[in-house]
């Protein structure tokens, strides 16, 4: 099951060491997920991980963060993916400046000025009490970058000695719990707007559950039920993979899992599939 996926990663690696989203030039995100997946690869399949790490390092910016692509000069949420990928490949220093970058990154809506403004005009459709992570600097926090940052920070928690990590993980978890949709799952992060409830998506529900590993299950029962239901009907490999990872994180993954019905698998989806299937 996994060997064809690894072969796909091997043949789709670009000459600069990175991976793309299916066509075109290399990006950090698929490269980081491929590197995370590569720790499970059989020795018989050659993938140039050193070259991939060099590509990743080439995207590091002077402010300590990472750019998503060689053509972008801003650090973004992908910094958490770079940290995670370097860490699991044994290439991260415990005082890497990107750790500080990630800890300092938070949604623009959670600054005290924004909170005060929101309180004054009573416009708070969303709970802004907790610090999540944004996709892009100086913008609001959303579910997917918060979940990815939490997963990365939790993997670093025993490697990096920094008193800010624990409180930030707590804040990120609270952010996710506050952004649950009425159906129990998660969408992109706008669970209630102008008095209307938003519906959840399978991929973000799986991602949030994966990030909430270790959270007491008592409040998550509706999320589990929803994720189990979504797993039966989901189409894309990406959504399927996140649901599997999310349910496994809470030890409620059924023994018989419906297989995904892939249309295509780009390198990022392939890597996520490997992570879902190969992880213990």
């Amino acid at each position, binding site marked *: 099951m996994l060997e064809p996926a690894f072969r796909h990663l091997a043949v789709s690696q670009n000459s600069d060491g990175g991976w793309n989203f299916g066509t075109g030039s290399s990006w950090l995100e698929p490269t980081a997920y491929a590197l995370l997946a590569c720790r499970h690869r059989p020795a018989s399949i050659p993938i140039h991980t050193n070259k991939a790490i060099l590509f990743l390092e080439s995207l590091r910016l002077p402010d300590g963060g990472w750019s998503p692509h060689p053509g*972008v000069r801003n650090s973004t949420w992908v910094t958490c993916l770079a940290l995670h990928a370097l860490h699991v490949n044994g290439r991260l220093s415990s005082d890497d400046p990107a750790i500080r970058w990630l800890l300092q990154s938070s949604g623009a809506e959670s600054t005290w000025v924004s909170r005060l403004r929101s309180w004054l005009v009573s416009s708070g459709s969303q709970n802004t009490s907790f610090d999540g992570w944004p996709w892009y600097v100086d913008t*609001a926090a959303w579910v997917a970058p918060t979940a990815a940052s939490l997963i990365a920070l939790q993997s670093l928690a025993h490697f990096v000695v920094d008193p800010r990590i624990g409180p930030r993980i707590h804040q990120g978890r609270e952010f996710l719990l506050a952004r649950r949709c009425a159906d129990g799952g998660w969408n992109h992060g706008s669970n209630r707007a102008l008095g*209307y409830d938003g519906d959840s998506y399978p991929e973000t529900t799986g991602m949030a559950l994966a990030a909430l590993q270790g959270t007491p299950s008592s409040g998550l029962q509706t999320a589990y039920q929803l994720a189990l239901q979504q797993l039966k009907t989901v189409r894309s490999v*990406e*959504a399927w993979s996140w649901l599997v990872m999310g349910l496994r994180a809470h030890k409620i993954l059924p023994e018989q899992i419906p297989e995904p019905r892939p249309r295509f698998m780009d390198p990022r989806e392939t890597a996520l599939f490997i992570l879902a299937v190969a992880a213990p």
Partner: protein
Amino acid sequence: MKPITRRTLFAATAGTAACSNPPSTAEKPQVQILKAPSYGQELFETVRRIFSHAKLDLRGKRVILKPNLVEFDPRTAINTHPMVVHAVLEAARASGATDIRIAEAPGHRRISWDVAEAAGYFSEIPGFTKLFTDLNTADFREVNIPSPHSGLKSLHLPTSVLGADLLISIPKLKTHHWVGATLSLKNMFGIVPGAIYGWPKNVLHWAGIDESIADIHKLLPPHFCIVDGVTGMEGNGPIQGTPKQAGVLIAGHDMPAVDATCARIMHLNPAMIRYLQLAATNGQLEEGAIIQTGETIASVATPFALLPRFEPFRLRP
């Protein structure tokens, strides 16, 4: 008496300014209004008539069709109907276009294929999988914004869009809970890549939604628009509103003029929609500044329900 808010006062003032300098007859934009009561086969002929009237000669051209795909909810009408996109695809082929792509960067869900499949694009558009480009992850280049209205100095936009000979915006006729209405101009948020800016493209919100819409308009290649108003959305659009049968397609080259006509059909005052004021640099929001062909606005106009905060936008006789 309705309270005058700072927003409505500013909108009215700016709207007056935008409408005070109508274009000369030679520069007047044309907007076509055609009745389209359903998503049946007759749509193909209706769209062919639009192409013919606009004299779109696409021989050998690279054309991007940009529908509005956000997320899918079977209870309402969020996305451009696939039959409209199919009809535009066939008309572009018949006009000689050699390289046609259906391209979109959905703003909420990052699995674009799932959104497209749920919205019926796989079943209604033959060969859709080979025609579709996910602009969220496509190659791009950075473009400086001349005299930006927003806080943005530049944007990274897909090279496929920037290099197109013709970009056809195919939005849904919808209300929008932040800016009043989402039409051909707002649809261009969907060319901004999520792999750089995220899902949603929140950078555009923090830089000013209306201002960002006007800025993106400045960066577009040659373009045309066909608005899917067969079934639109009213109330709490662009996602949680209710379907609204309007039975019309609205088309033209000039996005502000097309959107101003759409607004009038929805009984919205275009002068109150701030991004239209910013994008209309030639006075083309004024009804008399637009050459309307096909149906009259009056014959197809139907009031769209608005959220209470947008009642001041209501077009008054």
